[in-house]
């Protein structure tokens, strides 16, 4: 008899308490967009892009930070049967094959594609549409690394004077981390790349899971060198008027990455999703370029003067998505093996 009352009490409590949760989360189901952490992070363009899109089309949008690039892709694949998202922002060309294989995205021939230069169309079927691109680079704190001490190549970073001075990023979770892994394979080849990483165990202050943590750690002053993009100084010039943080250009070349946006096949709001993608490739290009600190994919986007502080690499390195797909598991395994030793 008491039992019933107890169970009843529990049920009542739960029924009262739980609809309230929705107050804390969302009112109606808006267009749901997954983005890597930094997109809607404190420095990201997310806020500006979303509010101007909402103002223009009257479609509410909810951006969800889904971890760094690879983590986000894993999440989308894991949720395939019961997806939350309609649009996914930030699948880079390096990991695209994994996304194709899972058959996540529906092709979309956006009218704006014609404004994007040919070399950026990494997916001929347009399941993923390029919205920005950039080159990986190491950023230094110029107040702590004098001009004459600056490294001029990846190999220079193994010098003892940079001991505990680098912040690196885990290639198992982050597309930036993956970028560096591919970069070292391009420069040192299959024979030498792991030796470089072996040396990094003394050079790295820490290896973070994602770019946001790494870059935050860097600007907090915990270490003077961080892995990022050649375009990162643009942000500091534009929003802080500072040229303290500078990108290092290596003559041997820089790994290039193209970031894509795609509409999930499972989405029930494809029309809105298309509008959002068009907006991202069109009007949103400028804020994306500025806050995301990447080159806009759309050739018609005027570059702000801040981009003068983003040095152009002399050599851009690419690696075919198929080659990456074929070898990635082995590379990551070897990397983990070396770095955990």
């Amino acid at each position, binding site marked *: 008899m*008491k*039992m019933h009352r107890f169970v009843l009490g529990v049920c009542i409590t739960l029924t009262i308490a*739980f609809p309230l949760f*929705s*107050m804390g989360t969302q009112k109606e189901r808006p267009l749901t967009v*997954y983005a890597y*952490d930094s997109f809607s992070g404190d420095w990201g363009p997310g806020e500006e892009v979303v509010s101007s899109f909402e103002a223009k089309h009257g479609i509410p949008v909810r951006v969800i930070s889904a971890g760094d690039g690879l983590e986000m892709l894993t999440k989308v694949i894991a949720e395939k049967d019961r997806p939350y998202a309609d649009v996914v922002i930030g699948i880079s060309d390096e990991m695209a094959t994994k996304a194709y294989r899972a058959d996540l995205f529906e092709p979309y021939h956006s009218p704006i594609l014609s404004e994007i230069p040919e070399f950026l169309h990494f997916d001929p079927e347009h399941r993923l549409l390029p919205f920005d691109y950039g080159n990986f680079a190491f950023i230094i704190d110029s107040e702590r690394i004098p001009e004459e001490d600056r490294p001029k190549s990846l190999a220079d970073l193994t010098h003892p004077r940079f001991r505990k001075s680098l912040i690196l990023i885990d290639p*198992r979770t982050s597309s930036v981390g993956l970028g560096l892994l591919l970069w070292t394979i391009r420069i040192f080849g299959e024979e030498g790349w792991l030796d470089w990483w072996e040396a990094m165990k003394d050079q790295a202050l820490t290896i973070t899971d994602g770019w946001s943590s790494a870059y*935050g750690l860097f600007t*907090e002053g915990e270490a003077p060198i961080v892995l990022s993009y050649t375009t990162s100084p643009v942000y500091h010039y534009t929003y802080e008027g500072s040229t303290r943080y500078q990108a290092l250009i290596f003559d041997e070349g820089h790994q290039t990455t193209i970031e894509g946006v795609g509409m999930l096949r499972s989405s029930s709001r494809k029309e809105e999703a298309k509008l959002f993608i068009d907006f991202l490739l069109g009007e949103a290009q400028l804020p994306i370029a500025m806050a995301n600190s990447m080159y806009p994919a759309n050739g018609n986007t005027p570059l702000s003067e801040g981009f003068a502080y983003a040095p152009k690499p002399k050599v851009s390195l690419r690696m075919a998505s198929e080659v990456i797909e074929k070898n990635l598991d082995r590379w990551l395994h070897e990397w983990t093996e070396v770095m955990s030793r």
Partner: protein
Amino acid sequence: MKDYRRFYRQKSIGPLIILFSLFILPLALTIRSGLWEEGSFTVKRIVSALIDPYTQRILLFTLKQALYSTLASLVIGLPGAYILATYSFRGKKLIRALATIPFVLPSILVVLGFVIFFGNTGTLNTILMKVFDLDDPPVKILYSFAAIILAHAFYNFPIVMSIVATAWEGLDTKLEAAAATLGSSPRKVLRTITLPRLFPSIISAAVLVFLFCFNSFAIILVLGGGPRFTTLEVEIYRQARMMGDPSGASALAIVSLLINGILFFGYALGQRKLTVAEPMVERAFEERRPTPIRTFFILLYSLFTILFLLGPILAVLSRSFIGSASRAGEATFSITWYRQLLGLERPPGHMSSALAALINSTLIGVAVSILTVTLALLLSVSIVRRNKSSSALELFGMLPMMTSSVIIGLGYVLIARLFRPSLFGTYLLITLAHTVIAFPFALRTILPGVRSLPEAYLHASYTLGFSPGKTFRTIEIPLLRRTLLTAAIFSFALSLGEFNATLILSGSQVVTLPVVMYRLIGSYHFQGACALGSILIITSGLAFFLGEVAKGDSV
């Protein structure tokens, strides 16, 4: 008269069924997921995990850091135990009280406090650089092995201190006095008479600390970094969430459970063997005042303890009031983070989900404390009143304590995969997981309260014609009011700070206070994280305070 026992026996059925399904079901799913493949039993996953050099290194690192952390906790905690047990001095109560702080602090808060206090640009280094006019931060321990050990020592040395001090205070000093009369030096007395008798308590404290550090998660997740500083629990999370491989995670979880089981079994065995039946006595404190040198060391130790315990917490509180326009800007006093937290300003980034997190965490906390206290009360009365096979029930109630919260979280991830809950369902699962985690603590609070309630009251009530049900409602519950409230607040505080199970269970949409704090720490928005952290500090402080009050006057 007899049938009141039946009444209480029936009381235990409901909570037992609920607990069983809340705790055993997720655990069973974990074991199935680790050991079954396409319907048939296989140890393939566990074997391949065990022969993989990477897993071996993780396991080795996990054991190594737990061992070092235990040693560090002993080194810091034992002098404290000695001081507390030997001398009586002013401020002793304060130190004892301060030492309970880490018990109630959520791990994510400790991590935040550590980063802010010990970081290269943290409070400690800033002060040292100003005082000694240095250009470089002198204390560079963050993101190193030492940082992990130090954080674990912070968390666990009070355990050593209080367990050993309690045992020490209970030792009869006659033996020492006799040995001294027979000509032994004080050092020899300590070595040959006192320490051997303290040994059981030191060992039990050490094993407990080792277990806690073995299962440590948040501290490693944030202060570790990279494949080199990864423990088993962190790898379970990584495989389940980042790699999308719950089966691999389950295999690791089984390994972890086995090791935990072995450690716990060894602990229980050792306890039985080592415990010497010695009557507890009121210890007479040394009459003579400590020598000046000793006074100096006692003061130094107390000062160190206070700084070590309060430094990180005060750093969190004060940092939450610092606003800066840009990352390069000057620090100024500001309540802007609290305004953002309460939704008075619309902030960018992760701070925008702070208000939702606060609401969600509070709601979950309330639901958890109602559920937990109800279950724990029903189980407690039936343990105490039915008089038969009660210790088995009690042991069962304590079981979730022996399982790491990451593994409980993993079990709920597997439940979630069974029926793919909506967002609402995910919050429900989080609530249930919190209930399992908080339950043993509620039981431990309520059980002594019920035990101390004289059964004669009940008999008197029955004699006056009240039914067992009415007696329970009108006599027992009102008498237990204060105990129940304490348990409820404890459960609420535990739920509010619960990070491990919540993080592993949360999709990208779930926001609770610790999860948002973790994301803010991840993007180095420390001020925001501190504002959220301060709320946790206040709640934990309240739980701590009420715990102390309840200790003072039990029913």
